[in-house]
């Protein structure tokens, strides 16, 4: 599904990624680990077409992401859900509106929005928080809202960047459980994290980045840094 072919990203005074190559198959749950500045976020940004590689190619199925025209990028992004450490919710919109806004932006009808939003909020355990603003929610609830938003358009791929960085261990475990369930129904997940416990508990494939280089690709790996 995702194929990085000798991808490098060089900023004016640093190398973020160096000749990175790997493949992600449909339905996989992959963890990418590495110290801060190892290139994890740059790698995710490339999948979202927010950053272009200096050299090499990134493919989504057979599409070369960085050769897609600007007009086609939104269509590509609709196939990808994303969750971040800082949630990236709109503070002046309620939980319902945050999700509705995503559906509206991707061109879904009002009828679909009315029927799907309560359903997805129920799925992440926020069925009773439809009218709450992000500042009225706890960290875990905010992250669940962000997850609901990321899956509302039924993406093929979910990109999850440090999702538990701001959460306590119990809430973190709850959040990871949600991701497992999402993966079980067939959505491919790429997760970056610093949390050793989470990586070890998942028991899935682990890619390890160091100074922009892919130094390890373990099929059923552990956090080893």
């Amino acid at each position: 599904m995702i194929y990085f072919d000798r991808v490098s990203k060089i900023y004016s005074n640093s190398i973020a990624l160096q000749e990175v190559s790997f493949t992600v198959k449909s339905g996989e749950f992959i963890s990418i680990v590495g110290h801060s500045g190892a290139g994890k976020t740059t790698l995710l940004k490339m999948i979202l077409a927010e950053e272009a590689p200096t050299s090499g190619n990134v493919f989504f199925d057979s599409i070369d992401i960085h050769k897609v025209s600007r007009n086609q990028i939104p269509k590509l992004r609709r196939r990808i859900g994303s969750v971040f450490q800082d949630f990236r919710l709109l503070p002046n919109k309620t939980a319902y509106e945050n999700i509705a806004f995503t559906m509206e932006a991707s061109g879904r009808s009002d009828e679909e929005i009315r029927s799907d939003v309560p359903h997805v909020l129920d799925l992440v355990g926020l069925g009773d928080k439809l009218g709450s603003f992000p500042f009225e929610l706890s960290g875990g609830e905010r992250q669940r809202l962000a997850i609901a938003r990321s899956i509302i358009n039924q993406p093929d791929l979910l990109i999850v960047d440090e999702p538990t960085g701001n959460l306590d261990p119990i809430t973190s475990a709850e959040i990871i459980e949600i991701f497992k369930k999402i993966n079980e129904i067939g959505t491919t997940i790429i997760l970056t994290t610093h949390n050793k416990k989470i990586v070890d508990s998942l028991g899935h494939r682990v890619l390890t980045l160091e100074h922009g280089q892919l130094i390890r690709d373990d099929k059923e790996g552990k956090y080893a840094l």
Partner: protein
Amino acid sequence: MGLIGFGRNGLVSVASVMAMTITLFVIGTVYLGGNFLNSALTEVKNKMDISVSFKTDAPEADILVLKKDLTFLPEVKQVTYSSREDELLAFRDRYKDNETIIQSLGEVDNPFGARINIQAVEPVYFDKITRFINGRNSPTNGGANLIDQISYKKDVVSKLSNLIDTSEKLGWAIALVLALLSIFAVFNTISLAIYTSREEISVMRLVGASNSYVKGPFVVEGMIAGVVASFLSLALLYPAVLWVRSVTANIYGGVNLVSFYFGNFGKIFIILFVSGVVLGFLASYWATRRYAKI
């Protein structure tokens, strides 16, 4: 969403509307002034004619032939003939209250020659028409000269139209400079709005919002500023034309710019409205292209 954005930006929106209002006001003034002066110039041109006084002994038949020939010239719009008797009557009428003049007239033969007045299609043809008339001698009176005097004021028209042209050019130049300034003002407003909404825009990008979904509201916001400014400038033009009428009250009873304003209200409105929308669109489109990249 554009309307909401316009409201949320409060004072900054007011500043860009003000800048655009001034620009549109100047555009309106230049248009109004230019058109009014041109119509005044046409009026003056219509009143301008070549006046040909004939010698008292010039045979009327020759004059009438000349008149007929003149009407066939493509450069001539209209020719009116006034016989010696008509001229005398007109003179008497003009000085009917002055007994001395009327009395002295009775002591001599009719001292007036006949006259024809020629209106040209354009004042530039005055010279050509004059040459045509000058070349005419009396065929019935042994080739004697028929003409006593030919008079016209061509210079006034050309000077006046040059003056109007120059002032119009100057007006448009000022309007152009102001238009650029107001584009900058709206550009800054929209850029600020984009900066304020950067979080929202980044989320929009993330969820795959289309280009038009992200940029549309900002472009609409700029166009709303243009629409509001067009209404304001149209309203401001009214007291301006009233003021022009009052300060020009001593000249021919005042320049009637007010009736010109109302007579061309629809046209002025469309010009200001379209200019406002176009300026707002250009400025906000430029800002979104620069700052709201997908």
